[in-house]
């Protein structure tokens, strides 16, 4: 963790500042912990504009609105990439730098840890007096057997041990535990790299699109069928897996207060270009898997069936047009554009609202009282003139450009009713309505990599935060009153938890070693090295 601190003092000798040294310096700088920290904080800060400003990939209309309202700040933010923060070069650069820093930091640590795993636990310290936990046991067993017993105890508790024989005739057992801490730490950081790799795979090979499907109509997984499509960056639209589905029926349930409780879309589907026959029900939180893609139910709404006839009764418009819900009461708005009425007559445009449960306010205005279609009605405003379609510019199908038009009237229709003349004798009939479902189709081949990496990261994280490195040494030496075992322990942090573990081990040793008849004369406990067992005894005695 403190690599950077170690390198901080490594200055190049004067006069030897070559390119190679410069590069090495900047590499060390980049892989130091301090730099990693600064990069992390920068990443957190960089994500902020992505949450407080509207984002193009999520809501392009909101971005346009923002640009319209902020004539000075808007273009500056736009230039800085604030409206697509998470794809902005500086954001991508930042997390790539973090990746490089991580790799640079992890590589030497993996090497060191591999070496530590292969190494033997270190020799015992000359004196146990400075160790935070100490104890001693005296027994009648010969030293060699005692050392073996100590080792067996420790190994049974999964300590790594090493037995050494010293010049003074003593046998020592060194034990170490808690290597999993560093292993977990490394797994966590490698898994974070795995998450980033999985995200990259998904961004390059995955696709995502949304389409509105009206009851009774179908959807084929081709680029033209989508209202919005974000195709895969490597494969393009050719990557779309062939499948088709038909929406037979859509249902929504509501509480009496109008709060939705369930949405169901009954669909038939098939892989390839077969006739869709297999039936299933799409619900929120329950997507459909087909041909390697997943189909999700995102939203729903109403599509009124409108027929427009010219003055001779000839049908010039007959469509089920999806309207967009505006609020929880599902008051939905939409636009009807009738470009070809009759030769010589103006084009007709209608701005309309669909009210699922029509009601009147006290002052006589229409509103929708309930989201379910209990008493549907359409209110409208008609315009005549030039729809502006001939300019060849793409138009939003949910908006009517009335600059070249005049308002000719408005009204209110119940199902089956026909309006009075709109313009040039044309009339409009509200035949009925159907419901529509907004489905999202997505495939993300990086998803599994991300999930597995995330789970590994969590496991590694928990291991590295829970496990503590700790060492125990036992020195076994033959003495006048029997064999003396001195035990000392050194934890890294968390002395509390280690103390009870240490005491348990010592108590176990006492149980398994036959005690010596007399108390040992040595060693005398010094002032700052009271054997743990004694302290415990004195506390337990009232």
């Amino acid at each position, binding site marked *: 963790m403190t690599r950077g601190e170690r390198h901080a003092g490594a200055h190049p000798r004067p006069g030897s500042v070559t390119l190679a040294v410069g590069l090495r310096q900047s590499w060390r700088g980049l892989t130091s912990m301090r730099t990693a920290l600064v990069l992390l904080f920068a990443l957190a800060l960089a994500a902020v504009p992505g949450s407080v400003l509207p984002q193009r990939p999520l809501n392009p209309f909101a971005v346009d609105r923002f640009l319209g309202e902020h004539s000075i700040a808007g273009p500056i933010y736009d230039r800085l990439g604030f409206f697509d923060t998470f794809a902005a070069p500086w954001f991508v650069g930042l997390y790539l730098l973090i990746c490089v820093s991580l790799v640079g930091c992890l590589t030497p640590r993996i090497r060191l840890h591999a070496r530590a795993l292969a190494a033997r636990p270190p020799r015992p310290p000359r004196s146990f007096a400075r160790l935070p936990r100490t104890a001693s046991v005296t027994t009648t067993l010969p030293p060699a057997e005692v050392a073996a017993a100590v080792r067996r105890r420790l190994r049974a508790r999964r300590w790594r041990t090493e037995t050494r024989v010293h010049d003074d005739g003593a046998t020592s057992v060194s034990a170490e535990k808690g290597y999993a801490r560093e292993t977990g730490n490394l797994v966590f950081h490698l898994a974070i790299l795995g998450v980033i790799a999985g995200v990259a795979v998904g961004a390059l090979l995955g696709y995502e699109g949304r389409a509105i499907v009206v009851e009774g109509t179908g959807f084929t997984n081709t680029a033209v069928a989508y209202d919005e499509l974000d195709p895969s960056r490597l494969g393009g639209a050719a990557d779309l897996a062939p499948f088709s589905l038909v929406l037979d029926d859509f249902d929504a349930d509501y509480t009496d207060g109008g709060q939705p409780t369930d949405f169901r879309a009954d669909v038939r589907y098939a892989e390839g270009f077969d006739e869709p026959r297999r039936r299933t029900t799409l619900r929120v939180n329950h*997507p459909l898997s087909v041909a390697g893609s997943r189909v999700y139910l995102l939203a729903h709404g109403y599509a009124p069936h409108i027929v427009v006839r010219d003055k001779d009764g000839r049908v010039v418009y007959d469509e089920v047009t999806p309207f967009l819900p505006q609020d929880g009461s599902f008051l939905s708005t939409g636009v009807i554009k009738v470009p070809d009425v009759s030769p010589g007559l103006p084009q007709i445009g209608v701005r309309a609202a669909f009210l699922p449960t029509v009601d009147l306010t006290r002052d006589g205005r229409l509103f929708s009282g309930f989201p379910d279609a209990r008493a549907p009605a359409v209110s409208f405003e008609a315009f005549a003139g030039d729809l502006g379609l001939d300019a060849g510019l793409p138009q939003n199908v949910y908006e009517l450009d009335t600059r070249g038009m005049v308002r000719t009237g408005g009204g209110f229709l119940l199902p089956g009713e026909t309006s009075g003349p709109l313009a040039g004798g044309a009339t409009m009939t509200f035949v009925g309505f159907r419901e529509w479902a907004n489905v999202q189709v*997505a495939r993300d081949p990086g998803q599994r990599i991300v999930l597995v990496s995330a*789970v590994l990261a*969590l496991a590694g994280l928990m291991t590295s935060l829970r496990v503590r490195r700790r060492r125990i040494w036992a020195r076994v030496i033959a003495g006048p009153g029997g064999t003396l075992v001195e035990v000392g322990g050194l934890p890294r942090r968390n002395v509390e938890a280690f103390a009870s573990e240490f005491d348990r081990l010592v108590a176990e040793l006492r149980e398994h070693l036959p005690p010596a008849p007399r108390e040992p004369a040595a060693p005398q406990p010094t002032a700052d090295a009271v054997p743990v067992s004694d302290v415990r005894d004195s506390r337990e005695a009232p």
Partner: protein
Amino acid sequence: MPVDQGLAELSDTLLLVAVLCYAVAMIGYAADWAFGRPLSLRPIAGGATDTLPASWTQTTGRLGAAHPRRGAAVGAAAVALTVLGWVVHAASLTTRGLAVERVPWGNMYEFSSAVCLAAVTGYLCLLYRQPVRHLGAIVMLPVIVYLGIAGTLLYAPASPLVPALNSYWLKIHVAAAAIATGIFMIGFTTTVLYLVQDARERRGRGGVNEQSRMPSVSSGGRMPSAASLDAVAYSLTAFAFPVWTFAVIAGAVWAEAAWGRYWGWDPKETWAFITWVLYAGYLHARPLPRWHGRRAAGVAVVAFVALMFCYFGVNLWISGLHSYAGV
């Protein structure tokens, strides 16, 4: 799904009782803190630590100021009231769940209540293991404020879930988020207390004499040492961070099932990410010699502010996919 109005009203009443218990407990803790005097200058309980060099004790995490004191009765009563408040609080959440026949963390009001229950649970667990009663007053304060906001500004009548929330991931993802937030909350409280105590110690009024490790005569003598507060704050954060990580992962899995992508930089997701990165920064900063102490604590405070924004700010000011969570 019908809503049992009787149970829902009972739940509201119980929450009010719980807040009252906590408020009285807080006053008790404060009285304990202000009027309790050390009866004797006995060394820290737990003998073994006395034999350790100072550098060891500083990182043990045990708060060394457990003296039998005159105010002890008030303090014990405060703890008893906290436990009572906790039981009533848990009952409030349970009855709410029974009233609507689902898990009781489906909107901001219920979530806030769950967060506070997690915070008090965390505090009581900590109290069981370590003598941290001194933290009581300052732990209760944000809990009461948070519950107060929940019960007034965020209050939502008992109602069933919108379809998007109707998933077993609600149980997992939101429960993990509530637990993590509650523990982060007491971690934050301890961090603030650490910063205050650290400033006092720097001005030489810290109350803990480094040589003898005895409390001084000033009121600060009843404050745990800055180092031990820092250690407690760290262990709380180190506990909550993996839980938060799990909450984010579970949220991503749910998002995949509900919206067709596991991550979409929705404002809630973005702020969960920012919070995660900042707490990760804190955990990385703390072992560094130049960051240890006040600078790392500063990072933890900023991280908690981000967490609060992730919760209140995103739900109240920014519209996104999580806005249905219901104010």
